[in-house]
């Protein structure tokens, strides 16, 4: 299966080609190259799926050796890809959703000057993400990890002439960097414990090398989790994701909803054997996930910017995924990852259509009543909203419900309750977004603009077809996880990956408690929808209780806390260093320079320009020389 290397390689070539020559070509060739490479990668992914399925389940772990990267003493890092059910699933999700978003981007970015640059970066992102997903060891994964971080920065700050965008890009990069420190330390620790960082070896040896609940295991898991926190925008390193909405909407859809932010979850799933050896760490993961889920959902409730609502929603849903892996429901976490990719991308692209129709605004206070001119977009958004809220039979319901059930069965009743409450809030905020955008009376300014500027119109097919494809996947995707009597299709496919781990209590399905839990989820979701419908058709939360609104609007003052505790001291330290550099170091340099200059000026007095003086000096020198010579 060496051809697996083409999966990350094709987009990489796309990056090179578009990066070097894209500027000189027209839109069509650039779009063709960019979309073509991703679609081709998807096709290779399908081939890989077929080849893998042909193998017996316990043989579905194929290592594709590319070359020996470096070896220093006992440490050897090969450039190797791992083809197993998990990576194939991720590849298909990434390339599938990615391809749809690429096609959508052709329409969305159609009149942007940086068209070629955009697609070059997007392809580079795909290459990095696919490297991350196909990696056989932590170091190769880290290459992809860093690559997606870089592309995230490049694409968030795509319109770099806008100060807000540039600042957001830097913020994203720096915050995820903090997490990356943990990741790196985790890699080093893993080297120390296992002597290698290959996933297969670590899965095999986890039980033998890591005492259950030991400090080494906990440290390793927490360090890696720190990296995941940064990349997947969990508490406390989530602050970059809402600001990342400054980037183009397709970027938000691809990177900050469907793929990059899921890297943290994916990494933990890959390291599941290690995590199972540190129950304390898993608890931490689950708690952080649940808290983040509800916290972000609450913040989304009062957010006036449509994209930022979706950003908080992403943070919240990622919290669910971490809750899942925190209780050991690996399959459920991946399933939610997949379904979330579908409906969140759908929501983002639909929002992009709205913006495209309105000429770029994302403030919901300036929207309203858009269902009439944009019926198709409204319908698509509605489908995504229902999926997010967890209404059956859409895919969001199945995946979220699996997670909540797993939490319940794991014994974490509190976490289950928190998750349920967050689900309620989710329904409320997304319906609120829908109502504010598409229903009701058009906002005053929007009405005026619509009449004078350009009437909102539906997006062209190049944009609407991908949206519709995602809607279809959202509706049908639930089939992947349908599990009433036995685990669903996806879970069964992924099962061999987790065969080395202990039997998972969360996967044992069926029974009466299942029905109860499902009913509870549905009830909460419907209640949330109804509540939001009622409230936001009539009035806003701000009117009802300003205090609550203020707290929520400031995201529980987390950012302010950050500013005071982290940012301000850092700035002070930076200023101190700058002073030292300017006065101390620079001053020293200037003293030396001035000294040399002064000495030179003093010596310059010899240069009188008088020939005869020069001759005299030469003569004196000659005499001295002669005197010395004679005296010998």
């Amino acid at each position, binding site marked *: 299966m060496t051809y697996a290397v083409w999966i990350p390689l094709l987009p990489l070539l796309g990056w090179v080609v578009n990066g070097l020559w894209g500027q000189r070509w027209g839109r069509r060739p650039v779009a063709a190259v960019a979309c073509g490479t991703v679609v081709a990668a998807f096709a290779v992914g399908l081939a890989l799926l077929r080849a893998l399925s042909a193998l017996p389940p316990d043989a579905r772990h194929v290592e594709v050796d590319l070359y020996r990267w470096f070896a220093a003493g006992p440490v050897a890092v090969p450039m190797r890809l791992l083809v197993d059910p998990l990576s194939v699933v991720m590849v298909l999700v990434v390339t599938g959703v990615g391809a749809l978003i690429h096609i959508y981007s052709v329409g969305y970015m159609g009149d942007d000057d940086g068209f070629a640059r955009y697609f070059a970066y997007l392809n580079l992102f795909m290459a990095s993400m696919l490297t991350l997903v196909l990696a056989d060891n932590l170091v190769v994964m880290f290459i992809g990890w860093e690559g997606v971080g870089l592309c995230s920065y490049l694409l968030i700050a795509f319109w770099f002439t806008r100060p807000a965008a540039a600042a957001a890009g830097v913020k994203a990069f720096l915050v995820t960097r903090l997490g990356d420190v943990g990741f790196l330390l985790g890699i080093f620790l893993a080297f120390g414990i296992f002597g290698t960082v290959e996933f297969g070896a670590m899965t095999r040896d986890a039980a033998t090398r890591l005492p259950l609940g030991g400090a080494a295991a906990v440290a390793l898991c927490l360090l890696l989790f720190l990296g995941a926190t940064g990349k997947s925008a969990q508490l406390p390193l989530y602050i970059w994701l809402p600001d990342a909405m400054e980037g183009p909407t397709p970027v938000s859809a691809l990177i900050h909803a469907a793929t990059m932010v899921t890297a943290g979850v994916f990494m933990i799933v890959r390291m599941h054997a290690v995590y199972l050896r540190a129950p304390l760490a898993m608890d931490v993961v689950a708690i952080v996930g649940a808290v983040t889920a509800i916290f972000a959902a609450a913040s989304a409730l009062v957010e006036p910017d449509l994209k930022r609502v979706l950003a908080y929603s992403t943070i919240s849903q990622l919290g669910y995924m971490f809750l899942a892996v925190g209780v050991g429901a690996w399959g459920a976490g991946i399933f939610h990852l997949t379904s979330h990719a579908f409906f969140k991308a759908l929501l983002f692209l639909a929002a992009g259509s709205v913006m495209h129709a309105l000429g770029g605004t994302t403030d919901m206070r300036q929207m309203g009543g858009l269902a009439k001119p944009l019926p198709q977009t409204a319908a698509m958004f509605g489908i995504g909203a229902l999926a997010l809220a967890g209404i059956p039979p859409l895919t969001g319901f199945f995946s979220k419900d699996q997670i909540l059930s797993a939490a319940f069965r794991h014994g974490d009743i509190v976490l289950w309750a928190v998750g349920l409450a967050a689900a309620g809030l989710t329904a409320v905020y997304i319906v609120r977004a829908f109502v504010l955008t598409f229903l009701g009376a058009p906002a005053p300014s929007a009405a005026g603009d619509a009449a004078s500027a350009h009437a909102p119109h539906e997006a062209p097919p190049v944009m609407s077809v991908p949206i519709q494809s995602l809607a279809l996947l959202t509706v049908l995707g639930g089939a992947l996880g349908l599990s009433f009597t036995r685990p669903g299709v996806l879970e069964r496919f992924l099962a061999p990956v987790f065969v080395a781990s202990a039997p998972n209590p969360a996967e044992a399905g069926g029974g009466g408690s299942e029905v109860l839990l499902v009913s509870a989820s549905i009830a909460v979701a419907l209640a949330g929808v109804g509540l939001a419908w009622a409230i936001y058709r009539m009035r806003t939360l701000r009117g009802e209780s300003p205090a609550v609104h203020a707290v929520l609007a400031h995201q529980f003052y987390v950012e302010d806390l950050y500013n005071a505790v982290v940012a301000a001291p850092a700035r002070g330290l930076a200023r101190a260093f700058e002073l030292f550099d300017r006065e101390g170091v620079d001053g020293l340099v200037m003293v030396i320079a001035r000294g040399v200059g002064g000495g030179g000026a003093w010596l310059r007095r010899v240069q009188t320009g*008088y020939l005869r*003086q020069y001759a*005299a000096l030469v*003569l*004196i020198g000659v005499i001295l020389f002669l005197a010395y010579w*004679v005296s010998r």
Partner: protein
Amino acid sequence: MGGVLVEAVLFTITAVLGVAGGVGVIAARQPVHSALALLLVLMSLAVDYLLLDAQFIAVLQVIIYAGAIVVLFVFIIMLLRTAGEAPRPRAAPSMGFAAVLGTVMASALVAAATMARGPVAPVDAAYGTVQQVGRALFHAYALPFEAASIVLVAGMIGAVALGKRAHVVTAASGGAAEPTAARVAGTAGGTRR
């Protein structure tokens, strides 16, 4: 023998004349007088060369130095018609300083000179003749000989180039000299005034 006496007398005469001429070169008010003093020095040195059995060199001295270089000097002096010297600025070495320096140097060099004792190598009649020097020039020193010819060519080219530029400067920019009327180039080489 009488040869010894003749030699000694000749040397004394040349020494006196040479030194006198040297002083004249550096002390004369008029440049022309300096040139003539230089000529005196050169001729006495030529006689010294003969005393040292360097016939070829002596002849060359007369031809090249006295015959060409001094003539060139005289030409230029006539062309430039330099006036007397203005009072000197401060930074330049004064006469006194130069005199002191000169005395020190002279004493050092003379002291060194007196240390050159040793047997005089005997030479045959062919020593210092055109043939011997010529043979050396074309055998052992052939390469420097060629180099010397290149130096001469370079000198010629340089002189022509420098001479040309004088034309361009005064003609194009109207230079420091006053505009010349239709003046027939009376002097060889055509350097304008």
